[in-house]
C-alpha cells in the first residue's frame, strides 16, 4: 500500500501535498474500500447463508424472497435497521452506550489488516501478525462489557459480565493452540506461517502430528467461544438473558454488533486456515507461472473457500448444539481445554525432535485419519437418512 503510494508520488502525483497526508488519505480510502466492498457484503451474505443453512437443517426453507434465493436479504435487513428509530434509554450512559458498538466493530475490523488473502494480498504483513490478531480481537470484550454496563439493564449487565469472563478465559486455550503453530513455523508473521506449509494437505500443520490435529479442534472451539457463538453464546443467550448485552440496542447500533459477530466468523475461519490449513497455498501449476494475476485470483479463491468452510461449520454447530451453562463453560475451559491444549503444546514440542522421515510418515498417517473421519462421517449421514425412513416422510394435505 505504502509502496504503491510512494510510486505514485514519484510519478508526480499529489504535488505539494505532505507525504503523511497522502498516506493517511490513502489508508482511509483503502479501509473504506475494504469495508464496503468486502467486509460488509461478507458479513451480510454470511447472515443470509446462516439463516438458509439453519433453515434447511430444520426442515424449513429460510429467507428466499429478496433477490435470487433471497441473497439480498441482508441488504433489506440493513436498510430496515438504518431506518429504524435509534433509541437510547434515558437511564443509560449515553456516551458509552453509543460508543460500545463501534469498539466491538473496530475490534473485529482491525483483524482484517493482517489476514493474508493471497501471496501479496495483505494490508500489512506484520512480523507479529498472529499476536496482533489475538490482541485486537480481545478489544471486542471491552466493547461488550461497555455495552452491558452502559445499557443500565440487568440482563445487559449479566450478559456483559458473562462475556468478559468467557472471552478472557478462552484466550488461553486459543493462545496456546496458536503457540503450537508458532513453534512449528518459527515465526509470528501470518505469511511466514503459511509459507511454512505446503499446498498439499499432508504438508499442512493440521496433519503435521496428532497434537496439532487435536490442537486445531481446540483452537476452533476456543475461537467459537471468543466469537460468542453457540454452544458458547451465553452472553446473549436469548432464552435466558432475553438478548444479553444487546437487549437495549436497536436499529443500526444493534446491527453493528451482529455485523461484528458474522464478520468475526470469517476472521475465525481465516485464522484457522492460515495456521492449520495451508492458507492460500495453491499447487504449482504451469499456468500460474506466467500470470501473476491468475495466481493471485487462485490464491484468493483457495483461501476464501477454506476459510468459508469453517464459517459453514460454525453455522452448522450452531444449528446442532444446545448451549452450555456459564459455570460449565468455565469448567470446560479450565478443566478440559487448558490442560489439553498444554498437552498438545508439549507433544508438538516433543514431536519437533522426531526425524524428518518420521514426521513425513506421521503426516501421511494423520492425513489418512482425516480422510477416514470424513468418510465415516458421510457414512453416518447416510445412516441417518436411511434411519429416518424418507419413504415414509409424511406429506401434509398439500
Amino acid at each position: 500500500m505504502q509502496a504503491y503510494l510512494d510510486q505514485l508520488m514519484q510519478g508526480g502525483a499529489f504535488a505539494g501535498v505532505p507525504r503523511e497526508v497522502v498516506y493517511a488519505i490513502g489508508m482511509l480510502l483503502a479501509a473504506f474500500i475494504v469495508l464496503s466492498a468486502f467486509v460488509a457484503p461478507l458479513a451480510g451474505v454470511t447472515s443470509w447463508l446462516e439463516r438458509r443453512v439453519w433453515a434447511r437443517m430444520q426442515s424449513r426453507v429460510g429467507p428466499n424472497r429478496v433477490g435470487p434465493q433471497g441473497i439480498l436479504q441482508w441488504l433489506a435487513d440493513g436498510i430496515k435497521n438504518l431506518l429504524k428509530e435509534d433509541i437510547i434509554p434515558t437511564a443509560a450512559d449515553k456516551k458509552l452506550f453509543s460508543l460500545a458498538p463501534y469498539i466491538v466493530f473496530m475490534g473485529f475490523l482491525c483483524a482484517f489488516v493482517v489476514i493474508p488473502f493471497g501471496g501479496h494480498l495483505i494490508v500489512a504483513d506484520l512480523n507479529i501478525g498472529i499476536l496482533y490478531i489475538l490482541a485486537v480481537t480481545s478489544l471486542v470484550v471491552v466493547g461488550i462489557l461497555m455495552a452491558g454496563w452502559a445499557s443500565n439493564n440487568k440482563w445487559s449487565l449479566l450478559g456483559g459480565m458473562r462475556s468478559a469472563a468467557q472471552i478472557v478465559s478462552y484466550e488461553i486455550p486459543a493462545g496456546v493452540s496458536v503457540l503450537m503453530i508458532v513453534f512449528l513455523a518459527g515465526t509470528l508473521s501470518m505469511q511466514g506461517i503459511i509459507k511454512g506449509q505446503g499446498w498439499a494437505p499432508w504438508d499442512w500443520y493440521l496433519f503435521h502430528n496428532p497434537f496439532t490435529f487435536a490442537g486445531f479442534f481446540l483452537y476452533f472451539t476456543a475461537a467459537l467461544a471468543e466469537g460468542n457463538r453457540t454452544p458458547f453464546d451465553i452472553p446473549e443467550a436469548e432464552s435466558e438473558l432475553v438478548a444479553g448485552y444487546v437487549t437495549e440496542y436497536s436499529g443500526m447500533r444493534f446491527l453493528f454488533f451482529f455485523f461484528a459477530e458474522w464478520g468475526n466468523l470469517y476472521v475465525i475461519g481465516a485464522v484457522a486456515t492460515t495456521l492449520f490449513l495451508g492458507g492460500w497455498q495453491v499447487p504449482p501449476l504451469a499456468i500460474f507461472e506466467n500470470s501473476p494475476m491468475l495466481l493471485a485470483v487462485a490464491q484468493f479463491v483457495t483461501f476464501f473457500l477454506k476459510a468459508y468452510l469453517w464459517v459453514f461449520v460454525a453455522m452448522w454447530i450452531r444449528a446442532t448444539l444446545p448451549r452450555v451453562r456459564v459455570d460449565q463453560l468455565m469448567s470446560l475451559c479450565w478443566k478440559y481445554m487448558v490442560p489439553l491444549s498444554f498437552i498438545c503444546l508439549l507433544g508438538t514440542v516433543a514431536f519437533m525432535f522426531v526425524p524428518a522421515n518420521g514426521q513425513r510418515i506421521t503426516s501421511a498417517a494423520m492425513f489418512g485419519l482425516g480422510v477416514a473421519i470424513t468418510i465415516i462421517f458421510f457414512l453416518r449421514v447416510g445412516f441417518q437418512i436411511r434411519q429416518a425412513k424418507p419413504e415414509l416422510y409424511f406429506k401434509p394435505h398439500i
Partner: protein
Amino acid sequence: MGVASYIKDVTDTVKSVFEGMSITFSHLVRRPMTIQYPDKIPVPIQETLPHRYRGILEVDLDICTGCLACERVCPITCITIGIDMNKETKQRDFSHFDIDICKCMYCGLCSEVCPTGSIRHSQEFEGASYNPAGLVRHFAPQPASLYKPKKGGETDPKLAVKVDIGQKYLDEFATPDGGAAAEEK
C-alpha cells in the same frame, strides 16, 4: 475426578457432537417441510383443507327455516336472528341475521344443530379487518322470507341445489357418525 471419567467425558462429548452434526447435515439434503404461503402452491389453500375444517361461518339464507336453533345453542351468543311479521304478505321475514365473527370461537355447535345445513363452516379463514365492526357478517341485508321445507322434496330447481348442498354438508360434517353409520347400512 478419575482419569477414566475424564477421558469418558471427552469422548462422550466428541461422539455426541459427531452424531448430532451428522443428523443436522443429513437434513441439508432432505426435503424441507414448509411450503411457500400464500403463493407457490398449485391449488388455493382452501381446497387443500379437510372437509370438516371449521372456518368462518356462512349462512345460506335461502334454505334457512328460521328455527333459531343455532342462536340458542351458541355458547358465546355471537349469532343474532331477528324475525318480523311482514304485514303485506302475512308471512314471517328475517329482519336481520348477524354473526359476530369477532366473538365466534368456531366450535361448530351451530352448524350441527341446523336442520337444513343452512349455517355452515366455510373453508375460509382469513378474516382480517381494520375494525371490529367489519367482522360482523350481515346475512340478511334486506328482509328475506323464511324457507319452508316441502314434503316430498324440493321442487324449485334453484332451491333444490341448495338443499342438496346443505344436506350433503349435514351428512358429511355435522352428523357425528361421519357417514360410518350409513356405510353399515
